[in-house]
Structures are given as structure tokens and as C-alpha cells.
């Protein structure tokens, strides 16, 4: 019984981080109807930034989040101008292909530089034990940080002028332009935010598990499931989606062979798509 309980808590802790990883994806989708397929590789960029910052400069892993946040934002703005700007308003397939191309280029460069070997960042945070089960400290810290970042993003979107502009552009770009919102700048900032979120979630994931240049695909895939659970274009929903996914993984694994969890996850993914085509936590269009 304790085992199931431990498994569920563990699932929720990791689920919060998956939720954070999906937030950037869903933010960009919500604002400009662009599926950013560089998301996975940006998560990996965050992982490698952490590796370099901790091994070369000896930074504390959690301090390294700040430079990654800033760097990620700048990279995101650049990405917007390189591969998204001209695609906004065109059929979604165009931006899908364009970001996929950038994704392949970046994976190619990453593979050439680092190969596909496994990298590991050691984090020593004391864990909490419950009977024979231990929740590693890094998992707890990552989950708390993910929740805090999600809360900050929520406050930003709801209560700042820029945040409100982002929501306005998501809701109706033309109307936003009519009332004097510089929409292009807002779009660039949104992509910047989305990539910064990817980078930060990469940092947090890298404190939990070893990683390779190719790790991004798996997290991107999870991001899609989380996005569907949480509602397209709804960043706070994404966090809830992540928790839901984690809960499910935690609750299911004690009873079935672990290789079945992925099957169950994707069956659920399809069922949710059929029953709630806009996601569970999504109430209305443009409700960023």
C-alpha cells in the first residue's frame, strides 16, 4: 500500500516538471497557432547549458537557471525571426516544417559536438524517506520550482501590461493591433518566453535524470500528451496536465508491467482527444 502511495507522490513530483516542459510549447501554440518542433531540442539545450555551467564554472545547478532563462529568451527571440515570423498566419504545416528543419539542424550540430553519449549532472540535495521509499531531494526541489515558475507565469499573464498584451494577441491578433498593441514584438516575446521555459525545464530535468543530445524527443512527445490533457494554448492547464500524467503513471505502474504505461498513456491521449477535442482544462477559445 505504501508502495502505491510512494509511486503516486513520485509521479506527481515528476509530473510537475513535465508540465513545466510543456508550458512553453503550449504558450507558443496559444499565442500564434504555431507548433514549435524545436521545443525538444531547446529542452536539451537547457540540459547542456546546465552541464557546461556546472562543470566548467562550478555553478550551483539551481543558480544556473538564471543565465539559462536569459539565454533562452534571447535564443527564442532569434528563433522567432529566423523560422517563425514569416510563417505566422500561414497554414500550420508551414511552421511545423520550418521549426522541424531548425530542429534537425540543431540536433545535427549537437550530435557533431557532443556525440550521443550520456551526460550526468550530480546534484546533492538530501531526500525525504517514507519507510523504505525515498523521494530524492532533487525531485522535490524541481517540482517546487516548476510550480513556482508556473505561478509567476500566470501572474505575469494576468496582471502585467505585457502579459495582457500577450493574451490579447492570442485572443484576436487583428483586434489587438487595432488598439495599438505592437503584435510582432509581442509574438517575438512570446516565443522568447516559450523557449526560456523549455530551457529551464531542461535544467530541472537534467538535475533528475542523465541525458543525451537526443533526449528532447521523448520530452517533446510527453509535452504533446500534457498539452492535450491540459488544453491547447493554456500554460497553467499544462501544469495540471503534467500532474495528471504523473498521477496516472504513478498510479498505474505498481499494477502493470512498466512497458505498458506508455501504451496506457497514449490510449488515454486518444480518448481525451475524442471526448474533449480542446483539452480537459480548456474552457473557451483564447483563454490564455
Amino acid at each position, binding site marked *: 500500500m505504501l*508502495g502505491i502511495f*510512494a*509511486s503516486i507522490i*513520485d*509521479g506527481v513530483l*515528476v509530473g510537475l516538471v513535465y508540465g513545466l516542459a510543456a508550458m512553453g510549447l503550449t504558450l507558443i501554440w496559444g499565442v500564434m497557432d504555431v507548433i514549435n518542433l524545436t521545443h525538444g531540442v531547446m529542452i536539451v539545450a537547457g540540459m547542456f547549458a546546465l552541464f557546461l555551467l556546472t562543470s566548467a564554472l562550478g555553478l550551483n545547478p539551481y543558480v544556473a537557471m538564471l543565465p539559462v532563462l536569459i539565454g533562452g529568451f534571447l535564443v527564442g527571440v532569434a528563433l522567432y525571426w529566423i523560422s517563425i515570423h514569416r510563417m505566422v498566419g500561414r497554414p500550420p504545416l508551414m511552421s511545423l516544417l520550418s521549426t522541424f528543419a531548425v530542429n534537425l539542424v540543431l540536433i545535427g550540430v549537437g*550530435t557533431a559536438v557532443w*556525440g*550521443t*553519449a*550520456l551526460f*550526468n549532472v*550530480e546534484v*546533492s540535495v*538530501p*531526500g525525504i*524517506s517514507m519507510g*523504505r*521509499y*525515498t*523521494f*530524492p*531531494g*532533487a*525531485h522535490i526541489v524541481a517540482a517546487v520550482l516548476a510550480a513556482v515558475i508556473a505561478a509567476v507565469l500566470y501572474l505575469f499573464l494576468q496582471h502585467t501590461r505585457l502579459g495582457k498584451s500577450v493574451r490579447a494577441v492570442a485572443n484576436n491578433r487583428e483586434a489587438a493591433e487595432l488598439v495599438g498593441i505592437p503584435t510582432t514584438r509581442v509574438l517575438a516575446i512570446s516565443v522568447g518566453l516559450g523557449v526560456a521555459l523549455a530551457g529551464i525545464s531542461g535544467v530541472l530535468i537534467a538535475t*533528475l*535524470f*542523465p*541525458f*543525451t543530445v*537526443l*533526449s528532447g524527443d*521523448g520530452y517533446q512527445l510527453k509535452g504533446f500528451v500534457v498539452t492535450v490533457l491540459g488544453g491547447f494554448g493554456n500554460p497553467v492547464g499544462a501544469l495540471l496536465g503534467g500532474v495528471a500524467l504523473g498521477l496516472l*503513471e*504513478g498510479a498505474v*505502474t*505498481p499494477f502493470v*508491467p*512498466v*512497458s505498458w*504505461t*506508455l501504451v496506457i498513456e497514449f490510449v488515454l491521449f486518444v480518448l481525451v482527444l475524442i471526448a474533449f477535442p480542446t483539452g480537459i482544462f480548456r474552457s473557451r477559445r483564447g483563454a490564455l
Partner: protein
Amino acid sequence: MKRLCFLAAAAALAATPALAQENTITIGFTDSQTGPLNVDSLGQQRGYEFWRDEVNAAGGIKVGDKRYKVKFVSYDDQSVGGRVQQLYTRLVTQDKADFLFSPYSSGLTAPATVISEQYGKIMIDSGGAEEKPFETGNKYLFMVITSASHYLSGAVAALKEKNPNAKVALVYSDDPFSKAVLAAAAQQAKAAGLQIVMNESYSPSTTDFGPIVNKIVSSNADAVLGGGHYSDGATLARQMHDQRANMKWVSLLVAPADDKFGELGQAALGVTVPSQWELQVNYKPQFGPTTAEFAKAFQEKFHAKADYHTASGYTSGVVLQHAIEQAGSLDTDKVAAALNAMDITTFFGRVKFLTDPGHHGLQAQHQMVLAQWQMIDGKLGRQVVWPAEAKSADLLYPIPAAKQ
């Protein structure tokens, strides 16, 4: 100007036959320069290349009274089985490879063996330990390493000696090699009277082993046998340590045999690995380098320690070379006959192949050792701990509990 071009072309044409006069043997293979098998494959590839460079420096392979230089043609298979079949076909039909080496891992070797048999090419296998491809009536496959069903027999025997009542969790990657090894290990553990309390496979691409570690703890196991290849094995070891599963015994396949495993720090301590070869083994070679000579020369060239994938890759070359020299010919059937008759000992150990049609080419004589990560002069390193006559240090049991 035109005349000048003509002259240059004529000169180039005239020069070509001079180059072609050097006899070469072409050996083809794929390696996993990218993808999840990258780390393990690199060791094998270095073994191949190290052998080629040494042979060529010594003048090449002697066939009758001629000498042949060794030329490699290789491609990146991206750790993907589908690529392997395309590329081996290309190696045979377009690159005209005379002989083939295996890719790395059982999953990639199996599709390659289909091609090598189809085209009647000899393939020396140092990367795939699964028996199945060898049980389909092949004629030209030769495995220099110990095959999958013997991988964990040493670990089971050693564990039984330390704790005859051990409760064992079998947790392994869902790939052909690991499944073959663990199926045999399950039988061996049962025969040894050990209790199996968990038997589960996971996808090779698993990144979060948290749920699996919780299940191991729930099963009340005190020993874990399993793993697969580098990425999953290293992650599993780290998460068992992070979650303080406190197993008394952990044997993982392949991953801990790589020096990179030491980067896990305390999570590596006490982990055992069945190994085809370690720096401490000491066979008396009939020819070729001794272990010490091999290790030293390799270290000087690659600035890295030789591991068993390197040694087995190198041995592929040595075995093929010896067979060609014995046969005195490059003819596939004559070389295959020499391989069938072979019984030699190199620094890697004894090599002899089974020749009955149902198991042709499987390794009959090579022995594995069990290595364990221990503290050696304050640093993590591998020691041979089993069998007793080959050990370089005592077995550490139980593994000290994780401190946090």
C-alpha cells in the same frame, strides 16, 4: 591549355595502376556513431581500427607469398536496425567488401547476419551475443565473444555463495540481447535456489526509472540483476542510488564495463558487470600482444583505457587474420574452413567455434569474468572479483548503504 589538360589526364591515368598494385583486403561494417548505442559501439570500433593500424604497420596480412593491406569501409548505422540491412547490402554489393565485421549489439547484428548469409560473406561477430541468429543453419557466422546465455552465470554463482537466500529482482531492457541473457539468468537463479521476486522488462528508451525503482523496493528484493546497454543501465544505477533502494547486490549488463560509468560517482560503487575481458585478466597468448602490451599501446594511441568492447573488436581482426593466413587464400569457403578448425588463445582468452549445424559459429571456449566497481586508492575503478582463480580483489558484499 587543352594539351596541358590532356597531359595531366594521361599522367593521372598512368599513375592509377601503380597505386592499384598494392593488394588490399576490404572489410566492411557499420558502427553506431550516433544513437543510444554510441558509447559501447565506439569501443568496438576503436578495437577494429587499432587492429587494422597494427596489421598495416607490420606490412599487412600474409596470404601465400603476398601481403595484403587491410582497408575498412564503414558507415554510421545510427543505432537503427533498418539502416543496418541497407548498409550491409551496400557494403557487399557496392563496396565489394571481402569480409564483414558485426555492428554493435545483438539487435543490430541479427539483421546484418541475414545479409551476410544471403551473399555468402564471412562475418566475425564481436558485438552481438544473442544466440538466435546462429541457430538458423548459417555457414559463415563466427562469434568471438561468450554468448548471451552465459553472461550472468558468474553473477548468479557469486551471489549464491554470498547469500543462498537472496531475493532477486530481474529488471532489464526490452531488447533481444538483454532478454536472452535474463531468460537464461532466470533459469540459472532458480536452479541455484535463489528466489525471483520480480521479473520485468522496460523500454530501452526509458529515461525515468523512478517507478521501476519503487517496484524493486516494493518487491522486497535485496539483489538486482539486469540492465541492457549504456544509457539505460547508467540511469537505472543512478536512480537506485538517488532513491536509496539499498540493494545488497547489483549486476548490470554492459554499462558498468565502460569507464564512463565511474562518472556516476557513489552510484557506481559495488555495481558488478559480467565482462568479456578486463585489464586484469592474464591469458598467455599464442600470438599477438599480451594484455599488458595491448593495454599500454591502446592507452598511448587513444588516451583512454581499453575496455572489453575494444578487446573483442580487436580480437575479431586477429581471428580473421589468423584464419586467412592459415587458409593461405581469400576464398570465403577456405577461410571459413580455417575458422571452423581454429582453437587459439590470445590476450582476450581462448577462441573456438561450435561447428554443428544448429549452433554453427557460436563461441565454445571463451570465458567471462565478473568485475565490480570498487574504491582503488581513493578512486573508483573496476576489479575482477569472480571466478576465484582470476580475481584481482575480494568481492564487496553487501554494497555499502547510500549516504545522504
